[in-house]
């Protein structure tokens, strides 16, 4: 996969992840940090993280059926999986997202 450059070409990511937070609470910050860490480690360059702040866009909560915050939604690949919590348990996150851990 070619690295995405600032061109008109739209890159197709293998992993599309959406993190729903409700403002910058400690849990949300932790979750984001953890998420970035895992993605960098196991999904190098194949991922796209979108952060949605429900306080700013509350109507989006209904679309993805978000109850808990923070929630990580794996949109691509299907099926949709949701992980709730601050993502501090790495193994559970990887299992939940069905990421095969890159053996280091």
């Amino acid at each position: 996969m070619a690295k995405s450059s600032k061109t008109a070409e739209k890159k197709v990511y293998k992993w599309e992840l959406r993190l729903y937070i409700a403002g910058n609470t400690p849990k949300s910050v932790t979750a984001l940090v953890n998420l970035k860490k895992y993605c960098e480690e196991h999904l190098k360059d194949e991922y796209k993280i979108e952060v949605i702040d429900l306080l700013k866009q509350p109507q989006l909560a209904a679309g993805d059926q978000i109850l808990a915050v923070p929630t990580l939604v794996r949109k691509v690949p299907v099926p949709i999986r949701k992980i709730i919590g601050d993502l501090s348990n790495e193994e559970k996150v990887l299992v939940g997202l069905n990421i095969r851990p890159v053996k280091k």
Partner: protein
Amino acid sequence: MPLKVKQSITRLKQLPKTPTGIAGLDEITGGGLPNGRPSLVCGAAGSGKTLFSIEFIVRGAIEFGEPGVFMAFEEKAEELTTNVASLGFDLNKLQKDGLIKIDHVHIDRSEIEETGEYDLDGLFIRLGYAIDSIGAKRVVLDTIENLFSGLNNQAILRAELRRLFGWLKEKGVTAIITGERGQGTLTRQGLEEYVSDCVILLDHRVINQISTRLLRVVKYRGTVHGTNEYPFLIDEEGISVLPITSLTLDSDVSNQRVSSGIPALDKMLGGKGFFRGSSILVSGTAGTGKTSIAAYFAHATCMRKERCIYFAFEESPQQIMRNMRSIGVDLKADVDKGLLQMHASRPTLYGLEMHLVDIHKKIKRFKPKAVILDPITNLVTIGSVSEVKAMLIRLIDFLQVENITVLFTALSLNTIVNEQTDEGVSSLVDAWLLVRDIESNGERNRGMYIMKSRGMKHSNQVREFVITDAGLDLVDVYLGPEGVLTGSAREAQELNQVTGQLLRNHALTRKDLEIKRKRTVLEAKIASLQEEFESVQDELNKAYIEEDMRKEIMEKNRKQLTDSRHTKNAGNGKK
């Protein structure tokens, strides 16, 4: 001044309430659900919790102008819409008009993985957004216990629930939380810990194969409420709860009198009939004409252009109409004019309480001036005697408050007049007419007694009650030497009297004739005597005349003789 302050706080603020719009519930709770606080509605599956809550929202939007949010955790929005369409609630239209908002929260356990700490802010945000988008004042969470099946971490969940209810209170919305009945607890997950301002329990009980829905206000902080179980029914208009009837006996009474339809009966009742708003019991053994009396009363009410409802528990309306036509009462015309409504249902159709609710509803809708229940004795098939009596007391109370005259017919089981008969109703009613069979001379005739009639002078005589093609009538009974005579004995007596009269007349005429004859005879006698007298007189006259004549002739003769003597002396006869 301290005194002034004291006075201002003695007018304590009552708990503000939100009316639900559900018929009868607002009366039981004294105004509705507590305003701005969450209430718990719990019950077993199928007891009507979702319906209750959706009706709360819809009526709030339509009748009270308060928009509402319905968070459905179990049903999808489309399913909900179709399910309540049968009640006449168009959820789609209401959503379009911005009066209600239905949000479906889907929790799929397989989708969720819990890692680490989280809170349910997502739910709060969704709820908050929904509430703010339409300015909702009412919220329903149905049923929040689904969260427990979706999420594992009980500690977080319970903490968040506590927070949720506090948050709802802060938002100032009146919320209904529904919960499934638990074994021994009000809800399975113990929601009653958090929602404890008002708890309503819905129940669906089957007794003797009859199912009854019951509602009970288990707890209501800050209000005096009825604590009994109230029956309710769910029909095509939603939920109707049987309201508390005024158990204080202080309703207004009227002095107006209404006719019973039978003029002779009105005469027996002080000349004018029954009091309006009173209760009348017509009892008698089978076949004594109670339904006919009831039909006459109905017809009389309709003739006065007042509405009447006839509740039949034994015969169908068509049967009653046909039977009444044979005695000259046309009930069909009244039905067509819209003055008479006939409702028939077998008592075993539903429970006693449901009948009462059903009767209430029909009366409230039609607003009649008279109601007839024919017969009430069937109701013992669905309840014990004391239950039936309790139900009738409530009904009579309700009707008295509304100033509606009610007539019950009841079957007495034997021909002996019981003092306390007919399910003890005889002491409740204001007027009691008893139709009894009088058996004599090998036939049975009907006699009507007015056992009691409160507040008016009534006849204490037994009248014979006849049913003919021309209708009902009361006839005076004959008191013959053997006692009361009815039926053919009476007719025989009447005949007797008539023949007696004829005979007397005949006798008189005969005497008359005799006298006449005597008179003629005497007159003839007198005539003959008179003739005799005249003839005797004639004879006497004749004698006189003869005498006179003789005298005259003798005189003449003498004269002649004298004359002839004179003429002889003059000459010697030779000329």
